[in-house]
């Protein structure tokens, strides 16, 4: 029966489903590998800095030396990241802030060199099988 009441109910259901989808995408937590290793994307090579501090969305920073890889969690689709480049004595030499989006599980590795080198997206193929 196509009447107002049923139309309203179907509409409500659609709204709920869309809301559910929003909750899912914006609330889903992803495991991210944070990489400070040399990487090659689309022909361009990106080199790592000697010592960097990476903080996502204003959270706890991770310290990575050249060749390090760490792991952390981020929630949702859009993120900010702050990378501080440090010298041997631990002082901040350079700061870089940027935004990126979560792409997918296959590309769940964040490459700091890629972000610092200006690549289109710092999310690269993750070696982890999941």
């Amino acid at each position, binding site marked *: 029966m196509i009447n107002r009441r049923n139309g309203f109910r179907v509409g409500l259901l659609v709204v709920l489903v869309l809301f559910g989808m929003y*909750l*899912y995408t914006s*609330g*889903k*937590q992803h495991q991210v590998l944070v990489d400070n290793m040399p990487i090659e994307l689309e022909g361009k090579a990106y080199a790592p800095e000697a010592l960097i501090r990476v903080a996502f969305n204003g959270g706890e920073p991770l310290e990575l030396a050249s060749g390090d890889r760490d792991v952390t969690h981020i929630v949702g689709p859009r993120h900010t990241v702050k990378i501080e480049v440090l010298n041997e004595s631990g002082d901040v030499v350079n700061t870089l802030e940027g935004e990126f989006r979560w792409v997918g599980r296959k590309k769940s590795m964040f490459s700091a060199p890629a972000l610092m080198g200006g690549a289109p997206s710092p999310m690269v193929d993750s070696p982890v099988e999941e």
Partner: protein
Amino acid sequence: MKAYTTKEKIQHFLISNAVPIIFILMSAVAIPLSGFSATYLVQEMLIRLARNSFLVLSLIIPIVAGMGLNFGMVLGAMAGQIGLILVSDWAVVGMRGLLLAAMIATPIAIGLGYVCGAVLNRAKGREMVTSYILGFFVNGIYQLTVLYGFGKLVPIGNAELVLSRGYGIRNAINLAGMRHALDYLVPIKIGTLNVPVGTYLTIALFCLFIVWFRRTKLGQDMRAIGQDMGVAGAAGIPVEKTRIIAIIISTVLACYGQIIFLQNIGTMNTYNSHDQAGMFAIAALLIGGATVSKATIPNVFVGVVLFHLMFVVSPMAGKQLMGQAQIGEYFRVFVSYGIIAISLALHAWKRQKDRERARRSLRGEA
């Protein structure tokens, strides 16, 4: 109608509030015995109020509708847990995770509530025993689903949730991602204490809902059915349907209540959490002075505080008194069940007395 003397008024007050009074007396003895400090107890009670009030509040509506204590609230709790399991698997965190869990669990809770209501309609006069057994029965089905179906029929991606044999959910699930998500939604601290303001706000909203609901037509219908099913039916109220609606509402609310409970604790005992939810909520409500046919919002809060006070204090009191903490723990189980037995007995006794009095007056004796 004769005027009541002060003595009669006091007697009446004592009898109708017998259970909470007994409890207060017992607590007065046990608290100093246990050695807990007042600040610790107050803090614990604040937490437990936040954690449990919603579940206990969900029991009010079936009582108003004359269906007694809804032991079938465990069905709602199970629905909530299924929602949480799925959301944990999908790694959705924070408040969004809770909302998603609630959204998924609601249709399940509605379905289960409908089954419960329909079964109870076929067992009029025996609602409480029937809902009690129904709780066990659905618990069996829940276990079938969660222990065998999840992992095999329902794909579970997160290996941490699954038992080592490859299917079936583990007994203890860590809800770290959603822990305190509702509690600390509005972050307020008093000294070093984190206050679960979010949950308190939700509970307050729920209380307002109950007050508003009582005034709606549906609420009034339920009240009428609670007082006299025959008269309500003759007045044109769809008795069967309304009773089912009452149970569905209660089940869905129990579902949310369980989600709130679990987000406060942070771990879910997949096969045990819901069991105790029902038992403790009912005990708390009765301790607060509610009966099988009457329950008010103050009953809920008084009951939660008194029940949990005893709960926290008994093991240590038992240890001081008898030298074994184990005795205290059994004592608290004994008191929980005993209090339900006493409340039910008092209520039934009072009802019988009223019936006899009515019969006697019909026969013409003054």
